[in-house]
């Protein structure tokens, strides 16, 4: 039902709040503002500018800071205030820093808008805290040099473009790998940033540390959005079965009569998964696919060969 707005209202009251709305939307060009206060009849000779000055004074006396810059009014304090402590401000700084790594696009714009809207609403205490805080290098990316951070930005862009890639990178054993793949996302791990992608051949998930990438070529082929990563099935037993916490990319398929659990895993780098499952020793057994089971046996055998 439409709101009943037929009651008597005050035009000055409406105008001052409409002006504030324009300021919030960064849409308070002088012409638009003067139009508002002259009801669209400003001819350059009327005394609307006097009226406008009265309203500007009203806002100033109410504690709202406004400045006119290049024929546009800008607001430097908001109607309602938000109080943040120094820990909150550290988080804001981290978000800002992380957004700088994003390629130009909607995500970056959205974050910028959010931060602007938020900062506009800081109360005086928060503003004072901002002035005295030195929140730099919050993301702890100092283990990367600027060249690699540029690569991170490029990889973020590749993920956004959704075109297939040809990547040449150094494997852990220092061998060189040439991979045709679909980029998925940039993954930030502890002291490591990786490009996560899905191989075109076999749909294997790769999480390649950015620093190991030798070259990336974007191919004129669109990524397949329907590409499904390889599914791994494994069984966990005994104490591990009781303690195991499913990852976001895993689901419990079945609980067997002896308490063992069958886990379905999708979307994890298989080399990382292999190392993780190896930790679980005899309490874990890979069921399928066969090639992955063989990779595990091969890894056990190679480890054993160290002692022969």
């Amino acid at each position: 039902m439409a709101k009943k707005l037929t009651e008597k209202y005050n035009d000055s009251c409406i105008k001052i709040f409409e002006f504030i709305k324009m300021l919030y939307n960064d849409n308070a060009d002088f012409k638009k503002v003067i139009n508002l206060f002259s009801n669209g009849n400003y001819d350059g000779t009327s005394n609307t500018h006097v009226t406008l000055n009265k309203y500007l004074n009203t806002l100033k006396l109410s504690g709202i800071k406004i400045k006119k810059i290049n024929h546009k009014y800008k607001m430097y304090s908001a109607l309602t205030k938000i109080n943040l402590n120094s820990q909150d401000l550290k988080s804001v700084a981290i978000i800002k820093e992380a957004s700088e790594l994003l390629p130009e696009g909607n995500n970056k714009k959205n974050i910028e808008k959010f931060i602007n809207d938020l900062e506009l609403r800081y109360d005086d205490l928060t503003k004072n805290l901002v002035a005295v805080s030195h929140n730099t290098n919050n993301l702890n990316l100092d283990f990367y040099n600027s060249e690699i951070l540029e690569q991170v930005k490029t990889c973020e862009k590749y993920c956004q473009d959704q075109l297939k890639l040809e990547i040449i990178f150094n494997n852990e054993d220092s061998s060189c790998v040439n991979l045709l793949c679909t980029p998925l996302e940039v993954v930030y791990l502890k002291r490591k940033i990786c490009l996560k992608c899905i191989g075109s051949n076999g749909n294997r998930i790769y999480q390649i540390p950015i620093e190991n990438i030798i070259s990336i070529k974007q191919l004129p082929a669109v990524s397949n959005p329907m590409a499904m990563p390889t599914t791994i099935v494994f069984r966990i037993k005994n104490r591990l079965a009781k303690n195991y916490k499913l990852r976001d990319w895993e689901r419990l398929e079945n609980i067997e009569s002896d308490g063992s659990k069958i886990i379905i895993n999708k979307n994890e780098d298989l080399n990382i998964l292999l190392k993780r499952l190896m930790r679980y020793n005899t309490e874990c057994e890979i069921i399928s696919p066969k090639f992955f089971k063989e990779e595990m046996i091969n890894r056990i055998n190679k480890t054993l060969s160290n002692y022969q």
Partner: protein
Amino acid sequence: MKQFSITHKVTYNLMSYTGFKALLIFFMLTEGPKSFKEIREKIALHPYIHEQISIDTMRVYINSLKRIGCEVKRIKGSDKISKYVITSHPFELTITDSQKNSLLKIYKNIVKSMDIKSILYMNNFLEKIGNYIKDQNFIDTIINYSMMKDIDKNLLENLLDYCQNQRQIVIKYCSPNSKEKNIEIITKGIEILNNKIYLKGFGFEYNQDTIFPVSRIKEIIEVKDVANNISKIKKLKVQYEIKNCKFDLAENEKIITKDNNKIVIEASTTNKFLLTQRLLEFGPDCKIIKPNSYKAEFVELLNNMKAGYYCG
């Protein structure tokens, strides 16, 4: 305005009285419920106004606030007095769905590279934002991404404090095997392993270094004034060599020798299980040098793992 800065007197030429009163009422009603009497008094006593307003004038202001998009409600408290309050207005911080998704993307990106304190701060901040925008779903999604699900935030903050000073505490722990029990531990740190948050320390139940998922700690029962001396507890010393030099040294490890191809490390631990897990993860890149007894156990374990695949 220049005149005002000297005299501090407000005239009709200086500002819009109506606009000023409207803003004053807006501020009052966003603070909390106010009766007509309270509003009238505040306006009457305001140094710039000194004016009585009637109930009809007041209604006009309320109608105007509604017209610009404020949700104004009239409520009656236990004192039976009608009060007005603004429950929402167009100047509140809002976040579009698209902005929420971008924030979540950023959060997902960075959460794994942040230490536990920063995660706590970030969660508190986003929770604050979630409360401002009145969106519990946003808060829940953040918590799900952050490994903090099922974890009592206050308990985690206390544990972080105790770890800083390596305090000896007694925790109520919900073990998957033996249900709830009290465990005494010298706290050493909070660590994230495989997307789970763990309390690290020396546990007196088995007299060994141990880790507990924080999600299973129900409460801190006791904080001891002085920690027991555990320096005399016998530790297992294992030397191993590792080929891949890109790895993080654990705090109970030290480098014995290092050349271009391999590093020899000595690990000193009271928890053989945790060390074995670590060495298994290294796979063929790691070879145990000594002691022979541990080496033999490790090889037996590998043989058992292999047998599991052929016999299972």
